């Protein structure tokens, strides 16, 4: 059952005197219970906007986000509706997402009291329980955020969110401000929590090498659109979209062989003036005439050779799909 499902989501940024920026231009994704969906892409691809729209911090200009089967609303000045409290977010920078002047215990207690809308004391046993859940000593409750390292702060931010007993958590670049060993620790914590609590996790990152170790399903985003979705290992071992191929090829391996990663020519275009047709075509080594004219939709693929040719509207879950004319023509089902 999908806990969080995003359907044909568009987010536009309009600013006076400037062309509208389509930060997210028609994305459909869904995250199941007990699943980590890793959403990867480079800066400017719209992944953070998508994260913010998913929890209601940004209003979509079209499309829907459904949580537990009911549509989400944008966070307004008023109180967040109770049925949305199970959808939470962890931010990139754990230095900014914890209040420097409040003790850690009190901030986690905010999470514990979220569902019941009651004021919970910092010495509540449930506070200690979530601290243990994220691998921190219960004595942490009495300390201030600055007394912790970056990795520990990210654990605290995760603990506060878990205290609200969420069923879905969106994490926006939770690892990028951390050291290598803290990254691996937080990544494995996420896997552990997903299994233990059956969480649906949307993990957003620019770092494919970390995400591929924890995500069950991978979605690759380029310039506001998802270009490929599928089980992580399948995508990693056999990427179908030329952008995914470039992205994987560009990750340098610590194999000691001295091989330079493959460089992708060009730069990500200005999202205010996206290229026609497939947004990747100007940088694509395999582009054909059709690519610059018609925008390909995500289409479920089958192992090459079979040609069935029907596309589906909302490719969701673990189905292997890509948005590329080269693949759609030969592999679509």
């Amino acid at each position, binding site marked *: 059952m999908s806990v969080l499902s995003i359907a044909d989501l568009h987010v536009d940024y309009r600013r006076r005197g400037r062309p509208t920026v389509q930060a997210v231009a028609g994305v459909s994704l869904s995250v199941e219970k007990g699943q980590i969906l890793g959403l990867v892409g*480079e*800066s400017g691809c719209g992944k953070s906007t998508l994260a913010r729209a998913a929890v209601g911090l940004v209003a979509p200009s079209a499309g829907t986000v459904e949580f537990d089967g009911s549509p989400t609303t944008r966070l307004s000045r008023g109180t967040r509706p109770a049925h949305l409290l199970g959808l939470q977010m962890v931010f990139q920078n754990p230095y900014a997402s914890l209040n420097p002047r409040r003790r850690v215990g009190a901030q986690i207690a905010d999470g514990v009291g979220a569902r019941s809308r009651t004021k919970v004391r910092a010495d509540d046993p449930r506070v200690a329980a979530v601290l243990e859940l994220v691998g921190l000593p219960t004595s942490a409750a009495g300390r201030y955020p600055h007394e912790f390292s970056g990795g520990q702060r990210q654990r605290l931010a995760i603990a506060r969110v878990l205290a609200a007993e969420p069923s879905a958590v969106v994490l926006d670049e939770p690892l990028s401000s951390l*050291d290598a*060993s803290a990254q691996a620790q937080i990544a494995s914590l996420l896997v552990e929590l997903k299994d233990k609590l059956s969480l649906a996790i949307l993990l957003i990152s620019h770092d494919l090498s970390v995400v591929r*170790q924890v995500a069950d399903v991978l979605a690759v985003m380029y310039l506001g659109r998802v270009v490929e979705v599928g089980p992580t290992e399948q995508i990693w071992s056999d990427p179908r979209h030329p952008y995914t191929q470039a*992205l994987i090829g560009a990750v340098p391996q*610590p194999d000691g062989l001295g091989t*330079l*990663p493959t*460089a992708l020519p060009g730069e990500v275009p200005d999202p205010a003036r996206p290229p026609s047709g497939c947004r990747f075509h100007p940088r694509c080594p395999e582009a054909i005439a059709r690519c610059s004219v018609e925008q390909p939709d995500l289409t479920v693929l089958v192992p090459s050779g079979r040609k069935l040719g029907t596309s589906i509207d909302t490719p969701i879950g673990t189905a292997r799909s890509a948005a590329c004319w080269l693949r759609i023509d030969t592999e679509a089902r």
Partner: protein
Amino acid sequence: MAEPLLSVEGLTVRLPGPNGPVTVVDGVDFTVDAGEIFGVAGESGSGKTMTFLSLLRLLPAGATVHGEARFSGQNLLTAPAGELRRIRGRQIAMVFQDPMTSLHPMLSIGRQLTDHLRTHLGVNRRSARARAAELLDEVRIPDPSGALRAYPHQFSGGMRQRIAIAVALACRPRLIVADEPTTALDVTVQAGVLHLLDRLRRDHGVAVALITHDLGVMSALADRVSVFYAGRIVESGTRADVLRDPGHPYTDALIGALSHTGALRPLPGSAPGAAERPGGCAFHPRCRYATERCAADDQTLVPISPGHLLACAENPLTRPRKAVAP
């Protein structure tokens, strides 16, 4: 054997702290040969950046530096200030993680490059301009003459880093110290900058001290690698020695954290701050092979094979293999 371009011996750096001086670099030895890419690996706070800042005498006030550092015959740590400035401008250049560290936001790229060329090389405006365009072409900036008129903010992060590299290259330095040069870049952009650094080394014979926490980047470029932990070098050797046959459990764990096979096995704990380093081998509290003597004895770098140095009492990773080998 030729004299190394840079040789550092017993380098120790202390910075003032709230409770007295703390040792951030603790007796470090290494050499960089002309034209090689020397990789300096380690997490933040391991002393890798401080090592190079101290060589260029760019440390904050109150810092003390001991040891020896010879750069093509000159002693960097004792050279007069004027001499050092000349070395810094012309012979050793720096590239930082954030290219805006070395680019002025309000001056055109052309102005910055030509000013730099004219100050250090004393060439006239016209030839400085021509050389500036050449440099931009060298780092593969499209339309170099147009780029000269543009300002840093008009470029993407990757392009800015290329321009910062062009500035570094301007005086044809013999050594470029590149501190996390690709860390802020997207992978596909990073790949391009890595190609660029590799080409510069091949075409111009410029040596690069590549400081990075990313062992993937290290593996792509470095000829030799030194791994820093808590202010010391714990392992050094050729790229293949260190990355394919790591001897130190710390190196092994760092590679393991990135490895694409097998389950995630994170290293527990975090690197100690400069003021709270444990005695003995500083890594022992996090090391799964640690024994009593790891906590007791300081470890020094000793060769385990020609050119491969290791500071580990137990040496748990290479010993079994040695036992098999005759």
